[in-house]
Every structure is written in structure tokens, then in C-alpha cells.
């Protein structure tokens, strides 16, 4: 019975293979696969251009075209300032915090966009970029990182989430002398819609924003030590870092922040 079934099936199948449409089908499949791969390269290219264009707009205080790089429901979080919800709030944040649109005499605020690592989701609808801004300004030097998300809407890529934690900010005296610890929600106007996702201090403290992609060689995912909300005093895993978790804290790890200043 078994043999007979296979025999019949083979009979049915054989002429089909002999007619060689299999070859044509494979070409169509190959073409479809090629389209996907080319589209992926184009998409990675597009989101890199978006991020670089964002930088060129920041350099010259072009807030309106900058906000138009974002989706309507985008979120923006820079430094320790908290989260701004939606495209209109992205524009409001920029214009209130940094002044109206247009270049300003006496102001240099270059946010040079370097070292981007783009990725595209398997369905081609979502993208991510890890990148850095190298800030050269009349105020001094700055080093934000980015772990941003992008969305393809009607064939056009837009920024759907900008997350830009700071590594280090200093004045022209240099980071050997002074570094800003971070920004926070009420440090300057406007206030955010939501509090920061992570509370951390910048250099000389240490914070690693999680990578959107695994180690490209080992495939392992780098997991920040969330026990201390991803903020570090010293590099993770070192004895100094472990010891720092006990300094100025109660045994449960929380900090005695309720005490008023002594002086």
C-alpha cells in the first residue's frame, strides 16, 4: 500500500518536474529574495541619512524641519530630561529649550553624527540605529549616544523614538577639570511629559544604554546590570562598582535621599 502510494505520487510529480517550470519558479523566488536584500540595504541607508540629517538640523537650529523627521506619535528623550510625547512636543522642546528656528550669531552647537550602526526588522517596517553625537560647541564638548527607533510609513522612514543618553559634557576647561553630571526634568524649560526612563549620572560616573543588537561575533546579548538601573560608578563587574552599591545606601540598596541638607 505504502509503495503504491509513493509510486502514484511519483508518477504525478515526475512530468511536472520534466516540464521544467521548476527552474522558472526558482528564478522568481531568487528575484523576490534579491528585492528583499536590496530593500534592506536601501532601508539601512535611509535611516542613516535620517540620523545624519537630524544632526545637520541641530547644528543650525532648524527645529521645524527637524521635528518633521519624526512620526506623529514619536517620543524623544535626551540626557536626563525625561520623555516628550509626539511630534508637536519634539518641536516645543527644541524651540523652548534652545530658542527659535534659525542660525544664531555667537552660537556654535555642532552635533556631529558618527559611527552609526543601522538595523532593519525582518518585516522591513522597523529600524534601529546606534550612533554617537560628537558635540563641538561654544560651550565646550559633549558626547551623547543614540539608540533610536525608526518606522516606515507609506514607504517613508521616520524617527519613531529618539533616545539620547549622555556620556560626558564639559566646558572648554576640559573634562579633566569639570564635567556636567546630567540634565534632569526641571533643569530648564519645557518640562517633559514623562519622567526619565533611567536615572543615571554622566562622566565621571558611567552609564551604558542597552544595545539594540547582539554581539556580531558571539551573538550574545549584552545585558546591563539593571540592579542599579543601568547606571554605574565604575565599569560593570569590577570590585569598585560592586562596593559602590553599598556606599550611602540602606541594606536594601535604596538611598537615604529624604534627609535635608545639613548646612
Amino acid at each position, binding site marked *: 500500500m505504502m509503495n503504491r502510494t509513493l509510486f502514484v505520487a511519483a508518477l504525478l510529480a515526475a512530468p511536472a518536474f520534466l516540464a521544467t517550470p521548476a527552474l522558472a519558479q526558482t528564478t522568481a523566488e531568487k528575484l523576490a529574495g534579491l528585492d528583499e536584500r536590496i530593500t534592506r540595504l536601501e532601508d539601512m541607508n535611509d535611516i542613516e541619512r535620517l540620523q*545624519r540629517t537630524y544632526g545637520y538640523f541641530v547644528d543650525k537650529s532648524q527645529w521645524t524641519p527637524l521635528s518633521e523627521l519624526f512620526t506623529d506619535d514619536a517620543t524623544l528623550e535626551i540626557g536626563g530630561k525625561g520623555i516628550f510625547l509626539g511630534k508637536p512636543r519634539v518641536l516645543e522642546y527644541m524651540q523652548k529649550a534652545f530658542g527659535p528656528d*534659525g542660525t544664531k550669531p555667537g552660537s556654535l552647537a555642532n552635533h556631529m553624527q558618527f559611527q552609526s550602526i543601522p538595523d532593519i526588522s525582518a518585516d522591513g517596517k522597523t529600524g534601529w540605529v546606534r550612533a554617537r553625537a560628537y558635540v563641538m560647541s561654544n560651550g565646550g564638548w559633549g558626547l551623547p549616544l543614540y539608540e533610536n527607533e525608526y518606522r516606515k510609513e507609506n514607504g517613508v522612514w521616520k524617527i519613531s523614538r529618539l533616545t539620547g543618553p549622555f556620556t560626558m559634557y564639559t566646558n572648554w576647561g576640559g573634562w579633566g577639570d569639570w564635567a556636567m553630571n546630567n540634565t534632569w526634568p526641571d533643569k530648564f524649560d519645557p518640562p517633559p511629559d514623562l519622567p526619565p526612563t533611567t536615572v543615571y549620572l554622566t562622566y565621571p560616573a558611567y552609564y551604558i544604554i542597552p544595545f539594540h543588537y547582539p554581539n556580531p561575533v558571539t551573538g550574545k546579548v549584552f545585558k546591563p546590570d539593571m540592579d542599579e538601573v543601568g547606571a554605574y560608578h565604575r565599569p560593570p563587574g569590577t570590585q569598585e562598582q560592586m562596593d559602590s552599591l553599598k556606599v550611602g545606601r540602606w541594606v536594601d540598596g535604596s538611598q537615604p535621599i529624604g534627609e535635608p541638607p545639613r548646612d
Partner: protein
Amino acid sequence: MSARKTFKAALLLGLACALTAPAVAQGDSQRQLAAYQHRVQLLEDQLAVENLTATFGYYFDKGLWNQAADLFSAKGAFEYGQRGVYVGPARIRQAMLLFGPQALGRGYLNNHMMLQAVVTVAPDGRTATGRWQGPIMLSEPGQNGQWAVGLYENDYVKEGGVWKIAKLHFYLTAKTDYDLGFAKYALQMEGPSAVLPPDQPPTEVYRAFPHAYLPAFSYDHPVTGQSLKQLPMAGDDIVGRPDRGMDSAPAEESSAAKGMRQQ
């Protein structure tokens, strides 16, 4: 025949039917293939232009003026800051000697980093444009170091299958002494040389920081598609250029500038 065997046979039969179904017509495959070849060609052209420009940077860093000049097309143009325009590789080679001797020498630092590329290849694949960010570190024998930064808006042309620079236009936007920094000091640009006058005067007259000039973008807004050639920019009273698209309200210090000084 058991149900399971029937199912197997049906599966095979189905496969056979699928394979005999008419494949994508040969003409469609050819059209698809041509479209994909074009898309891959544009990506390759973009990479070639990026490599060409990065190579220019590596040559220019080290005073390899002959090698750098060879990257230009026969009618190629070189315009640096306010020095004016030099046309053709022979004139460009001479003009570069204004930056130091061939291969420089002891005490020279001439780093011109070519970064943050947004390259746009024309649909016909014959020309391209590129906007680049150019941080600079300089030194000359007997002088203190200098920081500088600017933008490139370059034109490229493909001749005989090889990409060449049709116009390299560097807009130096800020320059300062290494120790003083942009907070305390701003250096202006060199004008046209009296020793080797340029072939044409500067195409755009402007002053560097603390003035705030915005070179027009060679590409349109990646989301809205709008032109980025007339964005808001502070004017220049000496040049006689009025403010463009600026809020008429007097400039005051931004909330972030005040806030960032807090610790």
C-alpha cells in the same frame, strides 16, 4: 489508502500542480532584474563617492596635494572657505601648496575629517552630490594648535565609469585656538591669495563663527520632500545680507543655555 497516506499523496500532488503553474513571464523577470541592477548600481555609486571623498580627506591630511588633485575631473573646482575657486587639477595642485609644502613636514597637522556623509546619486547615475561634516585639527611649525569645523557640499561626476570630484566646496564655519576654544576666541578665514589669485572669486561671501552661516542643502527633506535651500539664517550686516526667515524677536539666552550651567 489510510487518511495519512492520502494526505501525503495530496501534498505531493499539490506540489506538482504548483510547479506546473505558469511561472512569472520571462519579460517580467527581465524587467525586475533590470530594476534591481539599477538599484544595486545606485548603492555601489554611493559607496564609490563616499570612498572617493574619504580618500580625498586622507590625502589632504598629509599634504599629498598631487594625489588629491588627481581625484578631480578635468574641469573640477576646488573652493575652500573664502579663498576663491581654482579650476582644473593643475591649478588645484598649486592652490593646495597654500596649505603647506607637498607631503607637509615636521610641525604640520592638517587633519580634515570627512564624516556624516549624505550622498545623493542622480537617477541616471552620472552625477552625485554630497554633504559632509568636517571637523579639523591644525598646526603649523611655531604656532599653537587650532580647532575648526565646517561643511562640505560637493558635486561629483562619473567619467568613463570612474567617479571624480566635480566640485569640492568646503564651507569653513568656525575656527579657534586650541587652548582658548570657541568660548573665548574665534579666528576668521583666509581670503583669496595675493600670491596665487584664484580663477574665480568666492561663490558665496560669508563670515565664520561668531557669525552663523548656513550652507544650502544639496538634498531635499527626507520626509516632507521640501527644499532645504532657504532655511532660516541670521544675516550679515557687512555683506549686506538681511536675516532670512528669522523670528524678529530679539535673541535672548535659551533656557537650556542657562540650565546647563547648573550642576
